[in-house]
């Protein structure tokens, strides 16, 4: 797999930990160590989402009607709130652009 080169800043104690693992032969390189750490985070996030989805599915199977009502409420509430927050963000951006004279 091809690799992208990026620059990141890392706490010195973590760099020390990575270098110690490389020196001990537990990782091929610091890059491999960081790559594996990011991969592990991705796996844990996926597991968390799977657990949430499993619990949601339990509710859906147990009482489809109540679940559908709950889901509709949640979707309407979150969609409304997201639209409001995005509109505010756009308003702030417009104000900032206008204030700095950057607006077209």
């Amino acid at each position, binding site marked *: 797999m091809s690799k992208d080169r990026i620059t990141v800043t890392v706490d010195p104690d973590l760099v020390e930990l990575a270098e110690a693992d490389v020196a001990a032969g537990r990782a091929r390189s610091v890059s491999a160590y960081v790559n594996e750490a990011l991969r592990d985070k991705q796996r844990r996030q996926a597991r*968390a989402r799977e657990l949430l*989805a499993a*619990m*949601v599915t339990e509710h859906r199977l147990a009482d489809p009607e109540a679940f559908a009502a709950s889901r509709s409420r*949640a979707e309407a509430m979150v969609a409304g709130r997201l639209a409001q927050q995005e509109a505010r963000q756009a308003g702030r951006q417009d104000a900032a652009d206008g204030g700095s004279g950057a607006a077209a």
Partner: protein
Amino acid sequence: MHAAGYVLDHSVVRAVADRDVDALNTIEVIDLTGAMTILIPVSVLWPELERPKRHPEDDLLPVDDMLIEMGVVIFDELTLARAHTMARTWRTLTSLFPTTADPGQARMLLMPHVAACALERAWPVLTREPDLWRAAFPDIELDII
């Protein structure tokens, strides 16, 4: 970090731990937007996060780990920088709720932290206790599950 999001109060963290259908649906719907962050103030929420570990069916992944590991969730630690604001809010709360019976000391400690997180980001608080929030922080926007 996303520019949009929710701050969870203790009542919603507890509802997730209790596997409440509304709480689970709301968390999943927020996650599925791909555009919102969930912020969990951690000053006194940890007891709520610890509680679900007692569920025997949590061998695979405890509910607290689920919240912690979700990429959409971030945490906000209480810092000294907020001490002044927190103290002022604490005084307001104790004048509103002079008895220790309700809403309870732990919750009264948590609420100013949740409020500070919500106000700093202009995010709503997701809660199951809207009356408490309306009485204590009428300026904060609420979404209720």
